[in-house]
């Protein structure tokens, strides 16, 4: 076992030692060897540590706010026990996720004639519409009601029955509470906490996200699962929340972007092919790929608002004079017809590919799983010759319907990732700039990150344009969002922006920065980001008593340390 040399030394020491010394040595060696055994972690310990926390969803269906109150209380008690807890209103909860859950507690009120609350109707219907497999799910229901109605607590009972029917396992039998809710609900919360399932049989392994592959783009095929215009009626804005589901796992981190090559409109493509007097099914070789002409114009080539360099190349190609004006390809072809002497291949060679668009991902792989990704797309509206026109790509998204296919890739954004879980973060994201921060907050909530989170959000009107408001409010109530400040520019006579709120919070803001907080800005580059940066410099200069250039240096230093990052467009 020992090398020749070691063995010799060992024998020498023994040879030179008394009997007592040898006995002492043997005990000492035994001690050392045991310690080493303890110090080296056994292979299974890590698993235990990483699964000590339960992953729990607390859901509520509320009409008057009582269910919400009780659910919030349960969530905070469970969080206090270090479990990973997600609190959600049923109207915010995608019932498809139930099959992925392991432990769910539901507080459900009954309204009117045994009806579920309006906000829980979609969830309730989902349970009744089709059969589900909840065999991995453990749950308990607290039903609220008014015993003076004949169908007392009916909605809660229905949910309990359906869960049972779909194979879920009751942690506790259903509890019903009359109008005097607090006596019952407090006891129920106690019961829940004392009867949590043991870790080993409650937790399903969670897919761990991996970094996107570095070499080249990897395209995912997904299907639109949900698309919602987040702005309310009467808003001048149109912001789409889009959820895309995939069969294969998507690997990304909060802060990353989703890249997409938006396809051209069918009618534009057909018009161009007809102007070229070509056949849409004709195949052509393009970049080592054989593809139909239709697909080529539809999915590969830019045909809108052609750059002048292409206009010039086309003029040369057809040997004619073209004015230096940017037009769509179909207009160019209509005004300056394609010359039959030119080959189609030569014509295609002067065209350029569609530029991919990037959108900050607004979901978290932890909170939403690896088979789902969300983006937040503002539909750009602008006027051209008094006609309303929409941005090409945002219009593409706004026009998508549930079930439509989307091809996308992940664009890693190394400089815009989350810091360690114990670090504080300050997020400044007005408008669609909130997208990566929704991802951040969901992610940190799911991780149970101890660092504090502060969000600055702004838009035009509070009542119509507060993107993801109900989610942010739940995070605020459970403490996952420590502070939230908002500025709505058009709700008062003077325009009010996030930077004004930051200035009002100057002292506290600098406290956070001094404490090591990471600062993130996301949103419009030309106006917001500049103003916010100027405000940050003001805050630093005012609070740290530095002159302007010193404050600028301070901020650059933060940037070098990776504590100040911008994702602006």
């Amino acid at each position, binding site marked *: 076992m020992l090398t020749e040399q070691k063995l010799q030394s060992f024998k020498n020491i023994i040879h030179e030692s008394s009997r007592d010394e040898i006995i002492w040595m043997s005990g000492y060696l035994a001690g050392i060897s045991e310690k080493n055994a303890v110090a080296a972690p056994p292979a299974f310990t890590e698993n235990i540590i990483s699964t000590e926390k339960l992953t729990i969803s607390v859901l509520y269906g509320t009409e008057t706010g009582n269910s919400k109150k009780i659910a919030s209380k349960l969530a905070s008690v469970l969080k206090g026990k270090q479990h990973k807890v997600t609190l959600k209103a049923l109207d915010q909860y995608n019932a498809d996720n139930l099959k992925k859950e392991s432990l769910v507690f539901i507080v459900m009120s009954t309204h*009117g004639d045994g009806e579920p609350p309006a906000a829980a109707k979609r969830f309730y219907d989902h349970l009744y519409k089709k059969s589900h497999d909840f065999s991995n799910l453990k749950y308990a229901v607290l039903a609220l009601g008014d015993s003076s109605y004949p169908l007392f607590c009916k909605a809660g009972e229905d949910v309990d029955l359906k869960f049972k029917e779909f194979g879920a396992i009751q942690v506790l039998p259903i509890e019903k509470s009359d109008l005097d809710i607090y006596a019952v609900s407090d006891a129920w919360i106690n019961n829940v906490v004392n009867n949590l399932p043991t870790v080993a049989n409650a937790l399903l392994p969670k897919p761990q996200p991996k970094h996107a592959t570095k070499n080249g783009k990897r395209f995912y095929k997904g299907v639109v699962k949900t698309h*919602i*215009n987040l702005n309310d009626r009467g808003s001048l804005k149109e912001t789409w929340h889009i959820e895309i589901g995939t069969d294969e796992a998507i690997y990304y981190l909060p802060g990353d972007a989703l890249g997409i090559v938006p396809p051209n409109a069918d009618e534009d493509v057909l018009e161009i092919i007809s102007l070229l007097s070509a056949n849409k099914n004709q195949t052509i070789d393009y970049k080592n790929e054989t593809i139909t002409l239709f697909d080529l114009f539809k999915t590969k080539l830019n045909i809108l608002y052609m750059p002048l360099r292409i206009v010039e190349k086309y003029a040369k190609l057809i040997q004619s004079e073209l004015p230096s004006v940017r037009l769509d390809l179909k207009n160019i072809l209509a005004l300056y017809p394609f010359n039959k002497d030119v080959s189609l291949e030569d014509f295609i060679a002067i065209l350029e590919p569609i530029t991919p668009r990037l959108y900050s991902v607004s979901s978290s792989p932890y909170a939403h799983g690896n088979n789902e990704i969300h983006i937040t797309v503002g539909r750009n509206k602008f006027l051209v010759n008094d006609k309303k026109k929409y941005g090409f790509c945002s219009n593409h998204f706004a026009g998508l319907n549930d079930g439509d296919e989307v091809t996308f890739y992940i664009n890693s954004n190394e400089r815009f990732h989350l810091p360690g879980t114990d670090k504080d973060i300050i997020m400044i994201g007005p408008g669609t700039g909130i997208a990566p921060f929704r991802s951040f907050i969901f992610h940190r909530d799911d991780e149970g990150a101890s660092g504090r989170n502060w969000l600055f959000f702004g838009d035009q009107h509070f009542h*119509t344009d507060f993107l993801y*408001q109900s*989610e942010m409010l739940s995070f605020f109530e459970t403490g996952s969002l420590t502070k939230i400040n908002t500025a709505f520019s058009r709700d008062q006579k003077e325009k009010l922006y996030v930077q004004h709120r930051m200035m009002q919070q100057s002292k506290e803001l600098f406290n956070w920065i001094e404490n090591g907080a990471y600062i993130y800005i996301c949103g419009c580059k030309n106006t917001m980001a500049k103003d916010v940066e100027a405000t940050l410099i003001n805050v630093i200069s005012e609070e740290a008593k530095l002159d302007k250039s010193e404050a600028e240096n301070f901020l650059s230093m933060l940037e070098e340390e990776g504590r100040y990052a911008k994702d602006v467009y």
Partner: protein
Amino acid sequence: MAESAIEKIKKESNSLRGTLKESLLDEHTGAIREDDRALIKFHGMYMQDDRDRREERAAKKLEQLYSYMIRLRLPGGFLSAQQWLALHEVSEQYASPVIKITTRQTIQLHGVLKHHIKPTIKEFDTVKLDSIAACGDVNRNVIASAHPRFSAIHKEIFLYAEKLSKLLLPKTNAYYEIWLDKEKISADEEKDKLYQDRYFPRKFKIAIAIPPYNDVDVFTNDVGLIAIIENNNLIGFNVSAGGGMGMTHGNAATYPRLASMLGFVNKDELFKTVYAIATTQRDFGNREDRKFARLKYTIDRMGIDVFKNEVEQRSDIQFQEEKKYDFTIRHDEYGWHQNHERLYYYTAFVETGRVYDNDKVQFKKAFYEIAKSGKAQFRFTCNQNIIVSDIQPEHKTEIENILQQYGIIQITKTASPVRRNAVACVAFNTCPLALAEAQRYLPSLIDKIEILLDKYNLNNEDLSVRMTGCPNGCGRSVAAEIGFVGTAYGKYNMHIGGDATGKRLNKIYKENIEEAEILNSLDELLKDFSGNKSFNESFGDYVVRKKIV
């Protein structure tokens, strides 16, 4: 049993301040904080949300569309022309434009967003209007017979309404500090002998009727005062106590109740008497269960004699025997009238009290123009109508032309008696208590009832139909000849058999029925009534005589 949660909130509210100031500054929500939702009522406001929009907003990940209802304190229901202009502007600028005339002679605005509350209250303050104590566990708006025919007495009664309102107003300065940014006053000035730190156990309502008019539905109030007039002089009041409409579905221990007569007091004894009733309720009312907190339960628990004795002890005034009076009419008398000073009054019919403009009639445009002329003032009635009042004879034509131009005279003249007598509370989409529709639905139900009345030749019957969206009773359905009380969406308990002047409550006839069954029942009842009623017998009296209920 422990005191109810609201009692604790009141006591710890620092004289109704709570955290209202902080709530207004919360940037992330259009709501106010939990406890403040109870306290803001004492300032005349309710936090509500648009219930029609809940599902859609939830899908958009937006919180409920919170807004506030602001109700004015208008003792006797009077607005000057200048005040009307301010109300009009506020309703256009900060609220949903409908001005709702309530069943308690005031108006309320809906849909005021949180950041518009302060500007609204400020605007009202510039014309000396406030919303203090218009809701909450305090004395509510004091109502009084509105009809101008008795305006010699009416003027005096109107002053009593104002004085009673003032007498029972909370002393706290909170309203001025929170909504109007006024300076704090000393704690001594704020000391409230009446309300202390606990206010009443529940709402407290006072009405004054001038016989033969019972437009205020006097017996449905906690304190019902009946003006006694001898030789054209007001001599005093018959005092009744313990009326209230509210009940809870399925809880048989709760019930609507008409006020019990305590007796007559001279007019100089009125304030002391009412004050003693108020403090008795404050000290004896149930503070554990709000369902049993109204004065009616206090009286039934104590016994009327013990209660009366307690009031007499506290006021040091003995009730005399009640004086004779007679109520003959409860609804409004529409159209033109002239008073003793030869001033003209026009009582306009406002269906379910909603003042707004539509294709047929433009109330807001008309009243705005009248107010601008400065040639009339405005009075509200408990039947949710409006009286364009105090018009000099030489201005009558001008006002009449405006009323004509905007369709008000036409609609007042052509509406059937059953429509003109109908009353409905707000209910959906803003009232958080509503179980069923009321003001949005009743007009279309009346369309169908009119067809039945026509079928049995009962078009001129002065039938009173009232609807409330829940059993709390804002629409006073249980004091109607035909009353509907919402139980669930589209479903109502149907009550019949109240009398036409507010002296007898109706009884439940059918439970939980939908429109088709309502109309079937009415078809049978009206057929029976038209064939068998005696001369001048009202529908309510008929169904009681025939023991149908």
